[in-house]
């Protein structure tokens, strides 16, 4: 098990390295002059030279790459071209905000989806099961910005006026200072990721419930609660963890859209900003951060799946 994890971690690091290469090639080593591309046609030669200096655009390609990678590894991400502040202090707070948003979504969505999935599996073919099936299918087929807009219409501007439609961060306060503002963005994300998890959980659970060992547990006279929690759930969780990881990794894409929709001050919002401003160092930093998140979530899913399988756990 340890060796397997070690291998997965190495693979994750390799993935990150490939990402860094792609990011570098796509942003700095583009044919033509990155500095020119950023500053536009009317740039003065002095300003171009200064920017080239700042972006390490001198020297051969490998030299440029390793210089850049070295800076990256020492957390020296350069300064934002737009604000002139160091990238680390520009990205840091946004990263924190987005993490909070996603954490809230994940903490609500995962247990909820596993619960609903299990529950509908236990009530297979009942009215609740059919209704849940339809709702999840509809939600899964709607893009998240549609879900977000519908929520805004329903809960913020149209029918009810319960929550603010956009996020307003009062300077000096934290995103969680006014929890009501968080409700709609979190709810949108929850509705976006849950349907898949519910559906896969239901399917896996049905399979497990039909297995011989669940029948045997019932024939042993165990209470239904024990049958489900002790005998069925641990066997269903492994396969579902993979889907949850995919959904979480996908969540970060959803975050970009949701943050834009609610004007939430997070990495997604910042990424769109940075791309529009051609703020190269910030774009690079954000893409790398997102890649790290992807790799970490998938690694976590592997750990859960492996840990849920005693064959792997007990193999020396």
């Amino acid at each position, binding site marked *: 098990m340890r060796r397997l994890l070690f291998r997965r971690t190495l693979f994750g690091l390799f993935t990150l390295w490939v990402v860094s290469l792609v990011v570098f090639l796509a942003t700095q080593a583009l044919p033509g002059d990155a500095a020119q591309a950023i500053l536009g046609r009317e740039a003065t030669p002095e300003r171009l030279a200064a920017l080239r200096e700042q972006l390490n655009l001198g020297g051969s390609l490998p030299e440029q790459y390793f210089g850049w990678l070295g800076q990256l590894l020492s957390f020296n991400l350069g300064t934002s071209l737009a604000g002139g502040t160091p990238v680390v202090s520009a990205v840091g707070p946004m990263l924190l905000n987005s993490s909070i948003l996603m954490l809230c979504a994940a903490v609500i969505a995962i247990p909820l989806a596993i619960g609903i999935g299990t529950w509908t599996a236990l009530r297979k073919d009942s009215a609740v099961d059919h209704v849940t099936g339809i709702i999840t299918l509809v939600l899964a087929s709607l893009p998240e910005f549609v879900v977000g807009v519908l929520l805004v219409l329903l809960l913020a501007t149209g029918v009810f006026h319960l929550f603010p439609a956009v996020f307003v961060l009062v300077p000096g306060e934290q995103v969680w200072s006014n929890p009501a503002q968080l409700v709609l963005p979190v709810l949108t994300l929850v509705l976006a990721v849950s349907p898949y998890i519910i559906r896969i959980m239901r399917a896996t659970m049905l399979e497990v419930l*039909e*297995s*011989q*060992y669940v*029948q*045997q*547990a*019932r*024939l*042993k*006279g*165990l*209470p239904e609660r*024990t049958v489900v929690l*002790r*005998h069925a759930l*641990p*066997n269903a969780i492994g396969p579902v963890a993979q889907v949850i990881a995919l959904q979480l990794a996908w969540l970060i894409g959803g975050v970009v859209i949701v943050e834009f929709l609610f004007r939430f001050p997070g990495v997604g919002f910042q990424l769109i900003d940075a791309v529009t401003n051609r703020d190269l160092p910030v774009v690079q930093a954000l893409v790398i951060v997102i890649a790290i998140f992807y790799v970490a979530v998938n690694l976590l899913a592997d750990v859960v799946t492996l840990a*849920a*399988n*005693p*064959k792997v756990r*007990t193999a020396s």
Partner: protein
Amino acid sequence: MSTAAPTLEVEDLKIIGIPSMAAIVEELSLEVRPGEILGVVGESGSGKTTLGLALLNYCKEGTRLGGGKVSVAGQQLAGLNWRQVRQLRGRTVAYIPQSPASALNPALRISTQLKECLSGPAAQVLERVRQVLREVALPDDDAFLARYPHQLSGGQQQRVAIAMAFTARPALIVMDEPTTGLDVSTQAHVLATVRSMCRTYDCAAVYISHDMAVVAELADRIAVMYSGRIVEMGGTAEVLSNSRHPYTRRLLLAVPDLLAKRPMIGIPGHAPSPLARPQGCAFAPRCPLADAGCGTVAPAATEVGPRHTVRCFKSEQPLPPLQLRNPSISSAPAAGRKPVIKIEGLTAGYGSKTVLEGINLQAYAGECLALLGESGSGKTTLSRCIAGLHHNYTGDISLDNSTLAPSSFKRTKDQRRRVQYIFQNPYESLNPRRTVEELILQPVTAVRGKVSNAREIVATALERASLRPDHARRYPDQLSGGERQRVAIARSLATEPEVLICDEITSALDVSVQSTLVDLLRGLQAEMGLTLVFITHNIALVRNIAQQVAVLERGRIVEFGEVERVFADPQHHYTQSLLTATPNFQLPDRLSTP
């Protein structure tokens, strides 16, 4: 055997399938007394599992109780609420399922699975768990308790399942084919355990099996099920020596004789499904005694002796003489025979693991060579090497003195035509999207290209495999297990092969079907001069079909020679242990001369 009040009483039980409302089990009455083991035998689909589960007040998905009474230890199951049913399960009635590998939860330690059968102080529960483990001859230390099911062998898993059932000292235990799929030596251990546990606890038991030989060894009483009803029930000795129902008698004749003194005779046809049960006696379409009266009303259960009942109008009549297709096999080797397949110094493995070592074998033209061994002994790997399906070997395999290439792709078309392979499981080996005709033509076009007389080839192949011409248009899932395996045989015969490799081809099928297949193969051997390589773990089958036998143990041949000689005087202790572990089922005299 006690005369105490019965532990289990079933009266007129009926279980129906939904939504078809067809009766899966019907008019079923029986009783089992404390300490008594009732063996329930019948072909697959006869309703044995459905009955077994009903004794725990459990209906499989898609089935429902349709009437009747079940009472266990004085409690009427129908009158209990779900809480009382739960109390009853595991404590008063316990269940040992067919396949322990799938009935033990893979995610839980065996200590958890054993302890949860009991309630009470933890130390007391643990002590009891250790005690049962010792009783089923398993280690009782903490290290063993901490294991997961996958860390146990098949026999150990089954013994854990038995321990699990006995932990709470139930009054009744229901076992559904607990030894199917186990090796003979493991089976012998498990049966001995079951017997001693029932005796220790004076526990009533219902032992479900399709294997008459096993039931005859273990049970005090036998109930024979056919198409959802008990057609004959009585004391074991009584049912064996004085069987009254034609089905029981045919079933007894279908059991292969360990000494091969009598031929094994299958029952032609197959059992009706609950949806298409004929009116009147369900056995009528296959019954040699049937007449018009049998097809109108179903016979009621009548008493023919003490605690011996039969459902047949003609229970007094003997069976008519049977038509035997191949009355005897020539067990003496013919003079001047020559080897078709010759294997020299074969060593094979998967990756770095060696599973076969130093194999030397010959199969003679027109004879049957049996490969006998328990699961994991390398039988299938060896046969796959011969067929060119497994390339990772060193050594020499030759067909008629010309060496075969390891991979079947590198063999000539003619070599491929001459050696054909039949797989173990007919449910998996036939492509469900092709008709029987297409399936049969596949190997033909593979070795001969497009053929002009396709229709003729199919017709001959079907006839040889004793299938009807109209089977050609069917798809595999419209056929029974036995018919599917015949299609597999027809497919392999279509290329006019000389060597037929049969890998456990009867192990997924009922005894009655197994016998008809063996009979068929022997006929083909005589008519076409086929050479058979017959892989099996069943000694009785070897004695009934083969002239030569090679006994495999952990990848080595421990004994090789003529069947008669090897079994009359086994040299290797492994062969000896296999022989003693196999139930030696002997027919009562009255039946043995058909």
